[in-house]
């Protein structure tokens, strides 16, 4: 199994450490076609990282199959040769889940991008893993239906990646995350074995929920090559509020007040001042006031009648907690602009610093005000700028640590600050990742939330699906601790 990489240390010159032997390349080409096996070092550079750019490893090769059968045959050959397989969707993941390994070949799903069936009667869709999240909703909209989970990267991320990461998104507050919507999977397991897990509406009352187990397995069990998902009816109406606050603490208390009032918003998002300023200086400017300490985006959807009353109640909660103003997005264009800005916030951070570590953790919602203050203190103590934009209704934080990777001291301070934030979130009853996955980034933080017995159980489940450890090795699971050793530190220390 591959050794854990360190940031930027492997293959970043663009040369694979161990090229795939020509004989194997020829066999792979015979399955997927010559143009769909990439071995040229320049083209391999595209695949050297995912959205977590602190880690870069050039894969030995990239294979782009076009069907379940091709995936199965490719995996069969690679595993027979002892070559590791790293599945990849669009590469938008933020935890290094699609990072190549030194001995690995990336199997990309980009060509498997067809929606195979939309079944409006049963509100189901069957599709290939390379379908872009937002494209599914576009395709089902004429039927009055949509796909609920909406990660911020939904305009580029794929359903296969969403399944691997059990992705969330702003509207998961009301509607739940990916696992709630996946009703069946065709998966390619170790050695190229093709297995059908549930489907046609999902398993009922008879067996263990293997679909639920596979969702969120981060490419460590196998590759999902067909996905069946449940669709929801489009909401009749929507109301979007923008609460303007002087401080993050006030905004955090407003979140708790709204949720405790019995309302069920579709989404509640917080955007802090640093993020607002970056956004408003970017092409995504949407009218967030740059002098605000924080902004709260609150959305309600459902039956048109009654939405105004819900919005009124939420507005009162905001004002009671110190909002200086609550705006309503009365025009669809304004609402769309608010959401585009929110979802493109990570991109806009480039205006503040050249590099960004998007952290992801969840805390009990009532702990938000306290945790936000302490995160700011952690940033100050390490002299690291931290911008916050996150799913406040779920307590799902995304502190963004801004830095310059050329500055070694700053990189190290980012790592220490990041670890302290993780410890803080666990200390108040939270967890180390809410929706981005463990990947390589959080792997060494796993002992913060799982003891060795629990980690061993996770390793056993991995071995059940992947006995030789050839699917996405080095991800999710930390190495077995040596007796008496300290839990491993984060990615640098």
């Amino acid at each position, binding site marked *: 199994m591959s050794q854990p990489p360190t940031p930027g240390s492997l293959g970043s010159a663009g040369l694979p450490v161990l090229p795939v032997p020509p004989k194997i390349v020829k066999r792979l080409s015979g399955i997927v076609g010559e143009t769909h096996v990439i071995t040229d070092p320049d083209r391999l550079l595209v695949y050297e990282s995912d959205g977590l750019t602190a880690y870069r490893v050039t894969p030995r090769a990239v294979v782009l199959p076009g069907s379940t059968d091709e995936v199965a045959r490719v995996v069969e050959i690679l595993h027979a040769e002892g070559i590791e397989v790293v599945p990849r969707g669009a590469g938008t993941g933020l935890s290094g889940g699609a990072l190549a390994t030194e001995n690995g070949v990336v199997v990309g799903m980009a060509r498997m991008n067809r929606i195979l069936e939309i079944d*409006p*009667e*049963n509100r189901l869709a069957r599709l290939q893993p390379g379908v872009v999240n937002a494209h599914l909703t576009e395709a089902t909209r004429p039927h*009055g239906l949509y796909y609920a989970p909406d990660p911020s990267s939904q305009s580029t991320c794929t359903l296969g990646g969403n399944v691997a*990461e059990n992705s969330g998104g702003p509207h998961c507050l009301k509607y*739940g995350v990916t696992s*709630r919507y996946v009703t069946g999977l065709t998966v390619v397991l170790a050695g190229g074995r093709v297995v*059908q*897990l549930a489907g046609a*509406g999902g*398993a*009922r*009352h*008879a*067996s*263990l*929920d*293997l*679909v*639920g*187990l596979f*969702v*969120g*397995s*981060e490419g460590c069990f196998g590759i999902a090559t067909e996905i069946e998902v449940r669709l*929801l009816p489009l909401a009749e109406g929507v109301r979007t509020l923008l609460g303007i606050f002087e401080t993050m603490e006030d905004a955090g208390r407003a979140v*708790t007040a709204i*949720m*405790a009032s*019995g309302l*069920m918003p579709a989404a509640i998002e917080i955007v802090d001042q640093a993020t607002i300023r970056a956004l408003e200086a970017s092409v995504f400017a949407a009218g967030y006031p740059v002098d605000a300490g924080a902004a709260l985006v609150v959305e309600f959807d*459902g*039956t048109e*009648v*009654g939405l105004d*009353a819900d919005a009124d109640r939420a507005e009162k909660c905001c004002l009671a907690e110190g909002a200086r103003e609550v705006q309503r997005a009365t025009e669809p264009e304004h609402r769309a602009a608010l959401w585009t800005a929110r979802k493109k916030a990570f991109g806009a951070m480039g205006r503040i610093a050249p590099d960004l570590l998007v952290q992801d953790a*969840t805390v*009990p*919602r009532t702990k938000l005000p306290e945790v936000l203050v302490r995160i700011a203190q952690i940033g100050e103590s390490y002299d690291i700028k931290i911008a916050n934009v996150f*799913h406040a209704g*779920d*307590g*799902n934080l995304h502190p963004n640590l801004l830095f310059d990777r050329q500055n070694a001291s700053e990189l190290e301070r980012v790592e220490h600050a990041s670890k302290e934030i993780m410890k803080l979130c666990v200390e108040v*009853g*939270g*967890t180390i*990742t*809410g*929706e981005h996955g*463990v990947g390589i980034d*959080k792997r060494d933080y796993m002992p913060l*939330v*799982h003891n060795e*017995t*629990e980690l061993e*159980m*996770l390793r056993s*489940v991995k071995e*059940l*699906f992947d006995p030789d450890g050839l699917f996405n090795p080095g991800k999710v699971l930390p190495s077995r601790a040596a007796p008496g050793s300290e839990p491993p530190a984060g990615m640098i220390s």
Partner: protein
Amino acid sequence: MTLGSATPLSDVVSPEALEPASGGSARLALGREPDAYVSPGSVQEVVEVLEWARATSSAVLPVGTGAHVGDRRAERPYVVLSTARMTGIEIYEPADLTLTAKAGTGLAELGGMTGEHRQWLPFDPMDAAKRTLGGLAATGVTGPLWAGYGHVRNHVLGMTVVCGDGRALRLGGRVVKNVAGFDLIKPMVGSRGRLAVITAVTLRLFPVPTLDRVLVLEAADLVSLVPTARAVATARTLPASIVLSLSTGAASFLVRLHGADETVDADQRMLEAHAGVSFAAKEGTEAEALLAATRDAGADAEVLLYASTLPSQLGALLDSIQGALRGVDCVVVADVAEGCARVAFSGAGYSDAVLEMCAGVEALGGTVAVHRCPIDASPAALSTPLSPDAHEIGEGVKRIFDPSGVLL
């Protein structure tokens, strides 16, 4: 303590755990009487019992109230492990809308506690008022409220469990989004105690809706209500539940709407226009009584099974069920949104009827899962078999959690 094959159970648990009254379980008819009933009072005592069972080659059947283990058959000596003494709320922070309670805590008790804060658990499985929290998680049966709120497995945030070999684990946590490691909660929910003994559960709660209205349409037979039911299920709104019910010869269609008063009014008008019908609307105690009667219909029947297919094939599914049970006084409660029908009946000749039903349902691409039948038949043999792959992987998961096969 070193456990030998002759170590009596009384050596590893407190005397209270072996008191007959503490078992809290109904007598079980699994083909042989259990050797003992034990009710541990703590996670540690659960560990002790399971380690004892492994050392003595005994089997253990975990139960909440014991009312839903009719699919099991005991072919070797076994002990019933009840969670009846493990009760109480561990953490409840209403503003977080999450709750952690011990597995033996009754759903009715939890409903009372959360109701004080106008919160609730939106699950309505048969016998809901009699179930325990651990039993809810172990069976994973949500009830028709699935349509509006999602399945139990989507709302279990965390668990503590003791595996068959005595390892105690925490799965998940107490926050609403958590992907720190593979999702072992999913196979655990609905595993019916075959993987581990559930000792505590953390759930997401929901605000109690301002208004809970039940729309009712009655008819002489079930199948004639199907077109209306399907029209409602494919309308633009998302009701809390959509149920077709046949009980004591009367057929009815129930749609449950949740929300603010004006929202529920608007949804009712829209559904009536869409389906071309006029519903009778019930609220308050009248609605509660109707919902409870439908929810619990057939709870004591000798045969209890679930037949499922795609929702669009609901009419054909009901035809298959009624065709197989012609002349039999049966209860059918169908979840229209899910395409799943609960069927309950008593009387002789059930095996042939169930097999005929299986053949009909499977011809539609559906499945039948028998949850209870008289002791002279095997529920597994009467149910649609799992695919070989699902069976093999499922057995692999079982071996990981329960390597010695202690859990029945």
